[in-house]
């Protein structure tokens, strides 16, 4: 770990200024990912701006939406009564992530900003365009079992590891951001980005911009929801693939649907075409299978992740099936 300065401002503007004005400064909240990256020499900030003193940990149950502060802990959000009642899919996704200990440290904002778990990103002796632009993508021709089947580029085939973000993209959340140029709202689906030619950028946040909260609008998805995560052990593992499914069902007819996948792309992957297919159809296995097929259109596998082409639709069906029977 390199030597670094550490400041802990109590005013939001001071925190933003500290990062905006220093090219080598970065925010730190729970530190569950950043500290690991620093220990391994992958992140080498010269200054850490600790934002834990900022009053950003509240969960406000407003009419029509939940406003979840960026510093709310993953465990707090998952256990929050309003979240569990109004957005049970989010609570499920949070509880599927990491371990209890990590959820007690990790914040909502930090969860969104965690870096990929690609092995090549984590090894300074191997190429990675995300870590070191221009060095090449180690995974492209390497061991790419965990890697993307959608939206990748020849510069990067890494996936985003967050579970929470898969639920948030499905739920049409909005990210509230404050920065040197003032405040702005970013639809969750536009928050993370695809790698293209600049895989070093995971999100569309500008330098110095601070996530202050996430708004999750109320919807009809309080009952028929399910977050299905497939992993190599029963708990505490990143997803091979995951699916967030939310349905509104009346008389066995799907009135509204939300569907997103994790572990398949550089960002949480919303399945809009499949959602459209579901609406108006009976909540049956046949319908789910059709939606799953639509969802997988355009998927392309690499040497070691061809299983995702089959696991994807299966997991979508399983998620929808479970959601539909989750009364």
């Amino acid at each position, binding site marked *: 770990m390199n030597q670094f300065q550490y400041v802990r401002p109590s005013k939001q503007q001071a925190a933003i200024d500290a990062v905006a004005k220093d090219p080598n400064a970065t925010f730190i909240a729970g530190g569950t990912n950043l500290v690991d990256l620093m220990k391994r020499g992958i992140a080498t900030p010269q200054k850490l701006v600790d934002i834990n003193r900022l009053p950003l940990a509240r969960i406000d149950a407003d009419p029509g939406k939940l406003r979840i502060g960026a510093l709310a802990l993953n465990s707090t959000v998952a256990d929050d009564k309003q979240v569990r009642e109004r957005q049970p899919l989010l609570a499920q996704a949070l509880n599927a992530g990491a371990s209890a200990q990590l959820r007690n440290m990790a914040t909502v904002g930090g969860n969104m900003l965690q870096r990929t778990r690609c092995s090549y990103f984590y*090894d300074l002796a191997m190429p990675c365009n995300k870590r070191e632009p221009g060095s090449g993508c180690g995974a492209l021709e*390497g061991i790419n079992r965990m890697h993307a089947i959608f939206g990748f580029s020849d510069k990067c085939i890494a996936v985003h590891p967050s579970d929470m973000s898969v639920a948030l993209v499905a739920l049409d959340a909005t990210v509230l951001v404050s920065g040197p140029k003032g405040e702005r709202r970013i639809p969750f689906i536009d928050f993370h980005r695809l790698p293209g030619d600049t895989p070093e950028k995971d999100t569309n946040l500008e330098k110095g911009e601070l996530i202050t909260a996430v708004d999750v609008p109320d919807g009809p998805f309080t009952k028929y929801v399910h977050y299905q995560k497939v992993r190599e*052990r029963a708990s505490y593992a990143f997803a091979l693939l995951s699916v967030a499914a939310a349905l509104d069902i009346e008389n066995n007819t799907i009135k509204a649907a939300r569907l997103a996948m994790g572990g398949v792309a550089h960002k949480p992957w919303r399945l809009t075409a499949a959602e459209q297919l579901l609406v108006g159809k009976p909540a049956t296995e046949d319908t789910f299978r059709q939606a799953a097929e639509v969802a997988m259109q355009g998927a392309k596998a690499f040497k070691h992740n061809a299983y995702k082409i089959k696991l994807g639709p299966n997991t979508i069906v399983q998620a929808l099936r479970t959601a539909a029977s989750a009364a």
Partner: protein
Amino acid sequence: MKEQAQNKQIGAPMNRVDGHLKVTGAAKYSAEYELPNMAYAVLVGSTIAKGRLTGVDAKAAERAPGVLAVITHFNSPKVPGFDTAGKDPSQPATVGGPLKIFKDDKIHYSDQPIAVVVADSWERARHAARLVKGQYAPEKHKTNLEAGASEAFLPTAAKKNPKHPMNDYQRGQADAYKLGAIKLESEYVIPTEVHHPMELQAITAHWEAADKLTIYDKTQGTMATRRDFAKEWNLPEENVKVIATFVGGAFGNALHSWPHESAAIIAARVVNRPVKLMLTREQMFTNVGYRPYTWQKLGMSATPDGKITAITHESIGQTSNYEEFTESTLAQTRMMYQAPNVTTRYRLVSLDVCSPIWMRGPGEATGAFALESAMDEMAHMLNLDPLEFRLRNYTDKDPENGKPWSTKFLKECYQLGAERVGWSKRQLKPGSLRDGEWLIGYGMGVGTFGAHRGAATVGAQLLANGTVLLQCATTDIGPGTGTVMTQIAADTLGLDPKKIRFELGNSSFPKAGTQGGSSTVNSVGPATQEACLALKDKLRGLAGASNAAFASAKKEDVTLTDGYLALSSNPATRVAYADLIKQGGDKAVMVEARPGPEGQQYSMYSFSVHFVEVRVHELTGEVRVSKLVSCADAGTIVNEKTAGNQMKGGAVGGIGMALMEAAHIDDRFGRYVTKDFADYHVPVHADSPAVEVAFVNQPDPHVNALGTKGIGEIAIIGVAPAIANAVFNATGKRVRELPITPDKLI
């Protein structure tokens, strides 16, 4: 009844004597010793897998705060014994030897240490280590076993010695399975698996004088480690002291010494301060061995009524380019089932990797995956219950050498386990049972391991406070050695276990072998027993001088009580310890116990069988082990609780082996891509059911007087195939390459 009265502690589920120390953090492990003026060392690893180190740029590291030295091949003091250092004679002979750190410029594997940075704090050493840059002349490397399979060779030790167990084996006709009408031929692969004990490998090295070295080290053998480093530095063995009072798990990876230990000792020499070196978790993947990637082929033929007629079992394991590591992958195939024709062939492939090292159930666990999977495949071909198929091929004597078993209660294990797992629910036709989306299947796998026994010496001493102190250089890597020895001593002496202290993990104590190969209780147990008997007899003799009743008393009648030596038949006849101590009763007696000739007359093995019920999700391919019953014939069970604990730990290790553990190398770079616990999975609690354990608990009269046979290895051997077989029974899918991850089942 009398025997029960005598054996009050042996068999009882006594709590660990060091349990309180462990759970309160008072137990000190090798990285926890703080010595005055301590320095800290961190290794720098090679970024290439093969070639030469042409230079090391250490300027930035040397300028970094707190740095005391950067030691490399270019500036390391000469280690005098590197040219002559031998190997541990208690271990199977290997060709070549452990890597000699900083001896030359050769790079043998990726992350091989090229430098050690010593600083005044661990954090500063770690920071500076990142500033060190190696310069290399790379050469083409090989890290893929299958790509190198055409160069597989018979181990040199076997070539030199026709009696070496790694030679090709044949009874009956070679490869006779090919002629069978009912036959199978299957290939199996196990990936590299890494031990990963919770405690990281660590050493604190302290030169107390120019020719006097003390090390606090993670090792499974204090004597072997002492011998290694005495040889490296050309010192008399008594000038080297190795302390390993507590070892936080090892599973085999501390069975011999490693380059990082030499590095710490060199560093301590250079900076003239005690030096502590602890590997990082990432370095635990690359520098301290692993269960080697192994390819196997098994051919088997049988009669329609389920008698095996022939087995051929071939194996190719990986080793390093500087050492020939071998293991007994094919041993179980030669002795487990009746089969008139058996052929085994063992080969190695040299790769540019760190040397493997025995990992729990070494060899046998790998071989059993092939053999016990093939048994299930053949039973399926024959439309036979796999348990019935095994019973039809049960052996009452060792088919490898014709000798009688010392004891074998495997049938009893079968019966116990089958009942407990609910084997009667198993359907012959795969995919027959389900619970909603979950397919249910049952499987079994058998394990065996030699009941090895070596020489061991224990010292016994009566202390003035009435405590009996026992000492032995053996280690306790977690099974509860100190606890069971206390139980053995308590019964032998007739003394309350609270009045007994068993000290271990120190090379200055009376001699014992390395803790490995399930041999500690078999070896140290009888030494403890005999030392206690000798102590009692000595005290009886002293008591006899003042009390004629003792002079004529039978040995067995004498017992130690609180404060007095007494006669069991008449407790009023007693002599105070204080009186005995006045006569020299506090002098230690030392007794060496050695194995007898029985080892030549009998085939001695422990046996286990594991029964599992699995649930496989029909859509996601996730596997959950919902029941696991492990039954063992391990002779006398000295402590039901610690023995059960070993069995459960082995079963959980088997779940890891079957379902998730795999270390992968990217062959282009020769580097592991699985370098932490996010990528290399071991089971969490949710992956393991409440493992049930049952022991036959019948003494083996031939291994030793206690009747023990050993547990550590058989706890894991056979678990992985039991799970693979259950997955087949649930799904009809036969997975022959571990681990059985969801992608292989959808």
